[in-house]
């Protein structure tokens, strides 16, 4: 009996301390990766950071560092891919956006798009900058504030018997508009995230074919780092991609790295 109690306590301690110990290991590994990067051993740094990714636990800092390692190692495609991954988790992080901007300068496929209609541009920026987490928290916070303000107005109107209808309606409409816009953006962003897959060209130069066969006609050529939309995949061999919507073709899956796997 005594032994069983001792065993149970040991098991309990192990059980409780395991995640903490795992966290300790992760922290240690992360620091090792940073050290390797600082020591300009980018291969080792990539290897260490990838180990952390393989543990199925991720963070934007991890993807960001991996992107930096690949960039320093001369792998622009992978660098952009991991920065894009980091951006999915923390869209408003200035370091990620800055590095992506630097990487864009090295792209061979430079496409200058016409200016968007201001409203669409604003919506696009909002989607890019606002993470789903923040959007949900904002909606919650706005709802809470709205209720508190309405409650305050209601209480005040009861006490003073004043007509607070105008204030009531104004606050209600402003907050509801904000909540509706945020909700719409959140739903749309989530929908896009789940239904639109993007990938980065990882090879120096790759031919986009008309059919998913090696002897198909070459439609156009893309270069490392270009971002494409993945429409569909045929097993692990071929991906149907579109480049800025109007150029569609087939590419070998090994030539691209998907941003969200």
């Amino acid at each position, binding site marked *: 009996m005594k032994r069983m109690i001792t065993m149970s306590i040991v098991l309990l301690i192990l059980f409780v301390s395991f995640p903490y110990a795992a966290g300790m290991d*992760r*922290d240690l590994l*992360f620091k090792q990766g*940073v050290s390797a*990067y600082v020591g300009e051993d980018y291969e080792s740094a990539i290897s260490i950071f990838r180990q952390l*990714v393989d543990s*199925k*636990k*991720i*963070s*934007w*800092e*991890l993807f*960001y*560092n991996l992107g*930096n*390692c690949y*960039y320093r190692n001369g792998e622009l495609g992978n660098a952009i891919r991991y920065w894009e991954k980091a951006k999915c*988790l923390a869209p408003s992080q200035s*370091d990620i956006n*800055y*590095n992506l901007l*630097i*990487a864009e*300068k090295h792209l061979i496929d430079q496409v200058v798009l016409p200016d968007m209609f201001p409203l669409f541009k604003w919506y696009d920026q909002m989607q890019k900058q606002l*993470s*789903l*987490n923040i959007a*949900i*928290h904002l*909606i*919650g916070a706005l*709802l*809470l504030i709205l*209720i508190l303000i*309405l*409650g305050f107005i*209601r209480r005040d109107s009861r006490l003073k018997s004043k007509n607070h209808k105008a204030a009531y309606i104004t606050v209600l409409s402003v907050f509801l508009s904000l909540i509706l816009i945020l909700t719409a953006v959140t739903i749309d962003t*989530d929908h896009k995230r789940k239904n639109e897959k993007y990938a980065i060209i990882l090879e120096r130069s790759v031919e986009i074919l008309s059919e998913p066969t090696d002897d198909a006609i070459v439609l156009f050529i893309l270069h490392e780092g270009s971002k494409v939309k993945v429409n569909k995949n045929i097993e692990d061999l071929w991906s149907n991609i579109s480049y800025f919507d109007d150029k569609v073709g087939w590419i070998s899956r090994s030539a691209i790295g998907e941003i969200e796997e």
Partner: protein
Amino acid sequence: MVNYKWKIAVIIISLFFTVMLWGEKVTCTASKTQFSIQEQIQITFTFEDIKNSPRSVDLKLHDTFSIVGGPYSSTSYSWVNGKSTSTNKITYDIIAKKSGKLLIPAYEFKIKNQVFETAPFTLMVSKSAKVDALDPTKEMPAMFMETVLSKNKVYQGETFTLNYRLFTSENVVNYTTNPLNTLDGFIVDRFDLSNSPSSSKKVINGKEYLIAGIASLTLTPTQSGEFILPQKPFRISVKSNGQSRTIFDDPFFGTNTKDINIVAPADTILVLPLPASAGPAFTGAIGEFSMKVSIDSSIIQENQATALRVELSGHGNLEHFAFPEQSFPDGFEVFEPKVKNNFKLKNNDYNGNRSWEYVLIASKPGTFQFNDITFTYFSSKNEKYVTLRSPIKDLRVVSHNELEGDYTSALSPDEVRLLSKDIRFIQMEEGKIVDLNYDPVKDPINWIIYYFTVIFVLLFIALEIIWKFRMSNLKQIRYKNALKTALNRFRMINDEQTAEHILFEIEAAFIEYLRDKQLDESVHGDIPGIMKTIETYKYAPGMLSHVQLNQLKDQALVLIEDIEKV
């Protein structure tokens, strides 16, 4: 006999020519010989039986009269006893420029080697009377003008305004006048013909006039003395009345109007000379001013520039004076000040501010003391000179050597040159770690936040509904609870309480019961009795005993019981 016949013929011919000569004459007449300074009169030259008479006359009346119309010429023929006579007339519209006895000189006309001369005559021109002093016995004109001075006496250099006011009983469509650009003894600051003047109504000697300030003239006198501000002719277009409608009445072709020449009368202004002993800081400023002096920095580097700004604010002749010369310490190169004007002509004066910016360049290091900046103006309100004085802080000029170590030249973010671009450094620590398949929408924390707020919203809505329901059923609730409330109040009464308090509680319980039940005194015959007893007790609270009050309480309870049974 022959000689006799010849003599008769010569006499007849001589008589004929004499008669002929007697018929040829030129006269000059005026439509009025006595009139006021603002009145328009006609002067007419009549040429009788003179062929080839002139079509115009050089009046030479510029000093005394304004010619506002003409020459208008007309010719008429008449037959008297088989003899024809012709009359040519040349007429001018004139307006007197000044009052008094004004001479119309003799005019000489040479026509076909004959000389004709008109007789000189004088016209009596009276000063124009102000509107308020118009003679009530005289018939009032349909339209006249008045000049109103903003000040009757001004100082030399002091800006003032002359307003031209039109009094009209007719429908004015438009008005014009020639702008006045120069006037001897004055600077013409502005002549303004108002496009949309504000108007008012006034009854003068029984006649209603619409009064509008149609023009204004702002002047600044450059000399002292008494000056006549000359009359100003205006052409007023008025709508013609009583005329049949013609094609010209069509709006497309314009309205049927007639023009009336009218003159705003002359007026006099007394320009006083400025008092002596103004001081060197006076440069002609008249009005009311305040001064603000500022310097860019109290420490500057050698050979560096700094700016000294002097700003005068207020009202007066801001346009017409320069800032007095100021003395600056040696060691500075001072440039001509840059003047900035920010004033407007408003309420007969210039209002706003004027600034002078002196650029000073320090030529040697040291600490420099400045003299006070002084400015003198003449206060027309207080009729005396006022000197404004503003001190300036000492200015320290540092050498280049002294500057090193003490000061550093700062750069703006734009001035920082970017040498190259590179990616940013890696993150040293991890923040929030999430699962690889992390979905924010499925995050339990997010769901908790979401549901929590949704529950909160629903709770709020539910409370709102309940509250509204309660508000709508308030009377019903009170009706239901009336007995309970009354009994509770009665139960609270005990003998330890004062008589006054017990009476108050009984009254409150009873009256509130009746109110909640929505009953009046007619419902039960005993109600008025109890009410009367309560009222009576109220006037003698000191005389009340607990026994009496308990009886009252019992009566009230019995009554409530009776009502409840019903």
